[in-house]
């Protein structure tokens, strides 16, 4: 076969998965809550007021917190894990769709990127 996936490939894939889940699910709680560079300039230069409310500001995960979950750590962690999952499915699914296939009879790979 053209590119057999070695065990060390799996190490990299798992590494990214675990890192993403830990960063979004746990470490994100400790992220700085100061405005980011652009927002800070917008405040300092007085154009922050031009910001309009987001059309989806009442969606269940808006602002990286899970609605109806009071524990701040859990609320943010769940939102982060959900975001990692959504991004993985969307980007991974898209990549599986657009990738080139080395031989037409290769059907042993499913649509989902990782189990």
């Amino acid at each position, binding site marked *: 076969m053209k590119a057999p996936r070695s065990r060390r490939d799996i190490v990299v894939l798992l590494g990214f998965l675990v890192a993403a889940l830990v960063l979004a699910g746990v470490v994100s709680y400790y992220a700085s809550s100061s405005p980011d560079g652009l927002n800070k300039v917008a405040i300092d230069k007085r154009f922050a007021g031009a*910001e309009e409310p987001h059309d989806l500001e009442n969606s269940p995960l808006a602002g990286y917190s899970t609605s109806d979950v009071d524990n701040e750590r859990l609320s943010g962690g769940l939102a982060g894990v959900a*975001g990692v999952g959504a991004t993985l499915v969307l980007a991974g699914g898209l990549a599986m769709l657009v990738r080139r296939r080395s031989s037409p009879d290769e059907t042993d790979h499913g649509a989902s990127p990782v189990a």
Partner: protein
Amino acid sequence: MHVPDGFIDAPTSLAAGAVAVVGIGLCLRGAHRELDERSAPLAGLVAAFVFAAQMLNFPVASGTSGHLLGGVLAAILIGPWSGALAVTTVLLVQALLFADGGLTALGVNVINMAFVTILVGYPIFRTIVRVLPRRSVAPIAAAVAALVSVPVASFSFVLLFAIGGTTDLSLGAVTTAVVSVHVLIGIGEAVITGLTVASVMAVRPDLVFGARGLLAPVKLRLHSPPTTADAR
């Protein structure tokens, strides 16, 4: 660097959206050439990692934070076209699920964070590794490219603000303020990008798209396992 709704007027946002759609079309074609059954799963995970890293705002100056943009990182790991698609996916998820980054500003955000970072950063990375084609150079080249990509992406925002900003401001002052703070954020981008590329290269160097050309000839002469010979 996510632009909310209201900063940029409707016609400019619409035009940016059109540019983004055309760009995504080109990316889909380019990603078809870059991704195979081995790198496609990596593409999904790199996007997920960029999403997670973007949640981690780090302090850069008093009362100001920044986070990874991830364009250069994704481009080096999975290819420039696929990298732009990965960051675009992250921006879509953020805008649609987390109300982060305006819906009308999606085109603007895709241009600044998914396209400009890579259009600027990836050629810098490739130029450095072409001049110094050694494995150990790749993480440093990645860091340099990442460092430059962030202020340039922020300057791209200023340009769009100059065209269609809803607030009348001295553009000189806005440029100075936006670009200078993003030079600082770029240092964080450089550290994260360099360390991540170094980590992957330590385990599986031939999985790093941007470093493949560097390693293949040496590896072939050393008669290493056949898997590396396939990585083109």
